[in-house]
């Protein structure tokens, strides 16, 4: 590609490599400077500052005094159990949607990996929910779940799947949580599917051919070739998606914002409600910081799986 290799390359390279190694360090560090500056100022510093905020009674625009673990104590005791609801909901929301997104995403990837007409179009279409601005598609869902003019209910009633007038989606606690999960699965599945599809594309075809010659069924090919070969991708996707779902804010904020009666409250939403409209930044920071150890545990678990030797 433009650069011709000389016949004497190997010998020269060996000598060069030693010298190159010496000279690579300064450039290596210099190239990292912009990234480290941006991440340092707008990520590491706010993070550490947030830890400090959580042990003060700071309010919007005014730094407060040190109050020890007062915010955390308040969070546990003085909120009529909303903290527990938010904690349980966060786990439930992440757990349930992850299971569905994982299995549906795998199924979608398997389908997209087949010979199908309009492959390109189908692939782009199935990816849409993931790339369209979340709050905008969630607004559409909110309208679809409208208490009186829900098109979802209209469809359910007209296909005789539900009795008139159909469920009140966003007004009843259990339904609202289900609605939140349904929309999250709708939005998140394409990400899984595309990542899995990408992983499937690089599995050598010979493996399948050999298996077919040996008379392996489709299911056997899936469990003995596809799944093990896909393992690194499965875990990375699981890791990213768990983190993002755990900290999910925008979708639930638009669709239910914790309503009805805090029944769909999540830690992220609750932190916002205390911190910004409520003005108690310290308390809000304490609430959102609860996410951190939980996330760390989840990530450590996934990384442990990732590193386990075959």
């Amino acid at each position, binding site marked *: 590609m433009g650069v011709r290799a000389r016949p004497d390359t190997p010998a020269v390279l060996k000598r060069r490599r030693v010298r190159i190694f010496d000279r690579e360090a300064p450039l290596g560090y210099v190239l990292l400077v912009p990234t480290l500056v941006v991440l340092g100022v707008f990520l590491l510093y*706010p993070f550490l500052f947030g830890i400090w905020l959580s042990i003060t009674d700071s309010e919007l625009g005014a730094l407060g005094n040190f109050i020890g673990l007062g915010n955390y104590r308040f969070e546990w005791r003085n909120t009529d159990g909303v903290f527990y609801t938010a904690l349980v909901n966060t786990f439930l929301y992440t757990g349930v949607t992850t299971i569905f997104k994982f299995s549906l995403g795998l*199924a979608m990837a398997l389908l997209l990996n087949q010979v199908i007409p309009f492959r390109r179009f189908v692939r782009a279409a199935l990816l849409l929910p993931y790339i369209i601005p979340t709050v905008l598609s969630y607004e559409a869902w909110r309208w679809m779940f409208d208490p009186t003019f829900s098109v979802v209910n209209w469809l359910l009633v007209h296909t005789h799947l539900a009795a008139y007038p159909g469920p009140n989606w966003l007004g009843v606690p259990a339904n609202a949580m289900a609605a939140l999960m349904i929309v999250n699965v709708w939005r998140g599945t394409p990400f899984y599917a595309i990542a899995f599809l990408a992983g499937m594309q690089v599995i050598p075809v010979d493996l399948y051919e050999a298996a077919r010659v040996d008379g392996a069924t489709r299911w056997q090919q899936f469990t003995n070739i596809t799944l093990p070969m896909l393992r690194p991708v499965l875990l990375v996707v699981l*890791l990213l998606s768990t983190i993002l779902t755990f900290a999910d804010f925008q979708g639930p904020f638009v669709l239910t914002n914790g309503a009805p009666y805090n029944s769909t409250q999540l830690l992220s939403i609750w932190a916002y409600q205390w911190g910004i409209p409520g003005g108690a930044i310290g308390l809000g920071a304490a609430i959102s910081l609860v996410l951190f150890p939980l996330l760390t545990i989840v990530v450590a678990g996934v990384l442990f799986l990732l590193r386990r030797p075959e």
Partner: protein
Amino acid sequence: MAAPALKLKFAKPRSGRVIGDSLLGRTIRIYIPLLVLLVVTLFPFYWMAVTSFKSASELFDFSVSPLWVREPTLDWYRHLFTETNFPRWAFNTAVVATVSTLISLFCSILAGYSLARLRYRGADTIGWGIFVTYLVPPTLLFLPLTFVIRELHLFNNLWALILTYPTFLIPFCTWMLMGFFKGIPRELEEAALVDGATRMQAMLRIAIPLALPGILAAGLFAFTLSWNEFLYALIFMNDSLVKTIPVGVTQELIHGDEFFWGELMAAALLGSVPVAVLYSFFVDYFVAGMTAGAVKG
């Protein structure tokens, strides 16, 4: 000889016609599930579009099938452009997404190259460190960040968004680009070094041009993420004239308990079009980017 990882051609789909694979079997196994998935996936967008063309009275008339528009009207769109700040929000969103994407690409091309290609002490640790920033999502940062933005006097200033978006864009782009840089054969750069190029020249003239598909994929991804961002924009932008589309649409097109669904859906549709168009053109780059990041990363 092109770098193997950079080929955007997909491997040949593998389960072609196998003996015993009848059309009926394929229909049940592939086409029907696919059709169901497509309908469920696309229906909300269809509903968005249909709603935006309905008149106010038709919107709330479920006595006949609501799935079709009887008397299409452009009133909501007209209202959106003349009575609201929507054009301004669109402009803001485009500016913020473009500039923060460029900043993120600049940072992560350099960082990705450095971490994937150069050998020096601490490279692995820093690589892990950048990856670990995933543990600190915006949900955890937005409250302390309000103080930082206040200190910098950037409230109601688009720079607040342009500077904070890279915190979640750079880690992903760096990770994606590391995969692409690793896919470029070392020999190409080493040959250039032997021919007297400096490390910098090898990077600028060989590695970066070859990683162009990856850079495009990362840029596409960054652009979409910033176009869609909501939390920071919600908190840092209070003045209507500096809002982005997601914030403007959810905050200003809803008046108390009154929902103007037609207008809301028109705005949602228009706000989605740019990213949808981008993707329909570059979906292959996107998948290639995922491959590089997920498989080699």
